[in-house]
């Protein structure tokens, strides 16, 4: 359990590392043709086999910002905002962009004149703090926000110290929303339904197992003829967890796992283990690791013709540019990747990134998709306050947040499951020789 819940964040960090790597790789590192060939297919909104679309009311940003003209008062409310704006670079990048999502949403809401509850228009002021990636500092900031500033909503942190902060916020019945990969270890770990001590904690990060399962279901839907899967993972706690998740997800989707190979950190030459796996005649070769390893594994596997299809988390344009004509007759997929991590796969997402670029001074920051781990949820929280008719009664707001479905930038139906984990779909992309990259949106695997 511990390993599982830590995986997504590490996956995210790896993805950030990948994006950092990609950004640090100049245009000449990869053939420009790759970028030119990148194209987004029309969003398919393909539904996974187990999806059961919600049939109730799905709120929109317009619903949240609507005012009826009867308001007579204006009040500014304060929310806590604490993220790792300094510290280890990869954590900092992720935290900054996650925090950005909150800042951006709050600015939009305030620019729209705030939100209305009854006869009052509320605007939001964020009390911003840098946790410096230090759990002790995070604890101090949490106490300061609750005791001194008397906030009843706290956003963040993204990673370090969130478990410790959650213990405090839940004891004080403060609404606490964050990506929070450790939340499953603490307040949300032992409950079927988030209640009692954990009622005010919400994790905006979807469960990693969902991503893997979505990817597997999507592959099965696209390629029913594929049956045999081989998996390669790094020999580390995280790597082995990813292997387990792959095995479980692809088995659940109806595939046969014909080989699992683990390699030691620092490996460059994967040909011995690829030779071994090739003997098993896999249809699909799966790997999710740091970008350098993935690039090496994919290149060597393509040379050795190990499988018919290769699954990677490398950005599709990098794959296309790095391997060029070596992709002829082959297919590389990136399935079950975080929503909008590569290219926007919905009109709402495309519009969001345009606005977000403007908010960021003209250019999108690195790993900009991570901002979607918070942006939509700000609107959802406001919607919950409107539904509860209060900005103060945190229990009533949490109750409302449990029931709300929201059409946001990341997903057209976002909600929290009973354990207060967000439910968001994933994206899947296919790279083929001399063809535009196709990306589509896989609907989430619903409860």
């Amino acid at each position, binding site marked *: 359990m511990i390993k599982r819940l830590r995986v997504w964040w590490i996956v995210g960090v790896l993805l950030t590392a990948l994006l*950092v*790597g*990609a*950004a*640090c*790789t*100049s245009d*000449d*590192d*990869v053939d420009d043709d790759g970028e030119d060939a990148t194209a987004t297919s029309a969003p398919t909104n393909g539904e996974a086999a187990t999806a059961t679309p919600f049939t109730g009311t799905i709120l929109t940003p317009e619903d949240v910002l609507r005012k009826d003209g009867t308001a007579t008062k204006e009040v500014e409310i304060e929310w806590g905002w604490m993220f790792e704006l300094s510290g280890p670079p990869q954590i900092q990048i992720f935290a900054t962009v996650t925090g950005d999502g909150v800042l951006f949403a709050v600015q939009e809401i305030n620019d729209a004149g705030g939100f209305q509850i009854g006869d009052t228009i509320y605007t939001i002021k964020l009390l911003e703090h840098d946790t410096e990636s230090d759990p002790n500092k995070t604890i101090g900031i949490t106490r300061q926000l609750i005791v001194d500033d008397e906030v009843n909503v706290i956003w963040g942190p993204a990673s370090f110290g969130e478990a410790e902060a959650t213990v405090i916020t839940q004891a004080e019945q403060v609404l606490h929303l964050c990506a929070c990969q450790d939340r499953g270890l603490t307040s949300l770990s032992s409950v079927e339904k988030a209640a009692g001590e954990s009622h005010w904690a919400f994790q905006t990060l979807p469960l990693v197992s969902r991503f893997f399962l979505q990817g597997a279901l999507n592959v099965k839907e696209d390629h029913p003829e594929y049956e045999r899967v081989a998996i390669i993972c790094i*020999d580390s706690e995280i790597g082995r967890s990813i292997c387990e998740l792959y095995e479980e997800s692809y088995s659940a989707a109806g595939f046969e796992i014909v080989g699992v*190979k*683990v*390699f*030691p950190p*620092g*490996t*460059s*030459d994967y*040909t*011995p*283990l690829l*030779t*071994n796996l090739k*003997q098993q005649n896999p249809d699909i070769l799966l790997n999710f690791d740091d*970008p*350098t390893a993935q*690039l*090496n594994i994919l*290149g060597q596997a393509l*040379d*050795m*013709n190990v499988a018919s299809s290769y699954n990677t988390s490398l950005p599709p344009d*990098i794959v296309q*540019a*790095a391997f*060029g*004509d*070596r992709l002829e007759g082959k297919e590389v997929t990136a399935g079950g990747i975080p929503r909008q991590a590569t290219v926007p796969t919905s009109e709402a997402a495309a519009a969001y990134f345009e606005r977000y670029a403007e908010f960021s001074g003209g250019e999108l920051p690195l790993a900009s998709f991570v901002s979607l781990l918070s942006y939509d949820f700000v609107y959802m929280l406001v919607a919950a306050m409107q539904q509860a008719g209060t900005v103060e009664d945190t229990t009533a707001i949490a109750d409302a947040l449990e029931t709300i479905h929201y059409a946001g930038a990341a997903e057209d139906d976002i909600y929290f499951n009973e354990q207060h984990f967000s439910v968001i779909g994933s994206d899947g992309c296919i790279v083929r020789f001399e063809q535009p990259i196709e990306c589509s949106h896989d609907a989430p695997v619903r409860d």
Partner: protein
Amino acid sequence: MSQELSVFMQQLFNALTISGVYALVALGITVIFGLTGIVKFSIGELLTLGAFLTFAFWEGGTTFFLAVPLAAIAVGGFSLLLERGAFRFTLDQPINGFIVSLGLILVLQNLIIEIWGVGFKAPIRPFTQVWEVGGVSMPVQRWFVVWVAVVIIGLLFMVLRYTKYGRAMRACAEDRDAAALMGIPVALVIAGTFALGGALAATAGGLLASLFAIQPFLGSQYLLKGFAVALVGGLGNVEGAVIAAVLVGLTETMGSGYLATEWRDAYTFGLLIAILLVRPRGLFPARGRLQETLQ
């Protein structure tokens, strides 16, 4: 060809490629140690520097085939400067040279990150064809690496055996003082050897840049393997390093091909331990002054 045989041949080919790279790194370590007694751990970073310089030259429009020798010359020159600026002051105290070498790892690593960033660079791949023979997939690029390694090793042997510089180098390795008395410019020979060691490592790095994605921490992986190879072969022994490179490449590849893959490094270092238990100075111990250093 039966499947078992083709798999075996495939693994043999896999081993051959990686052995070539290990041999070049080990030779860089062993020629410097053989002459000076200094364990130059920073050779791993010179390999990384060679890989990134090859990439930079190629990125600048130079062909890969020219980029590798250019990088080798540049790193060889840099290694020469390091010898003149630092290592020559440690020749009487090789342990100090070892410490300088450790410090250089950090300096060079940060320098590389400063210039090229922490990200990876995709392989250059001048050859993209793959030969399929009897079920064995042999990328042409890998053949190229093998042959370049063989040619360089052959040239090195010839230089050491038949040229005036090679004889001077061997004489210095046997006994520096006696070599000096015979009129050999010992300081110059040592400086040249540092340049040669650096150039060998850079060549290995350049070749690696055509096989694998490279990143600034690449060197440490190959340093350990190169050092293991040099130890197995007998530190300071050039022929021993080449034979040991093949042995280590085979052990690693066959081990991870037929047994548990996660134990790959354990096979290499298990072999190293086993050999050192039986032959504490490696399979082919060096002679002369070097032997004294090791005693």
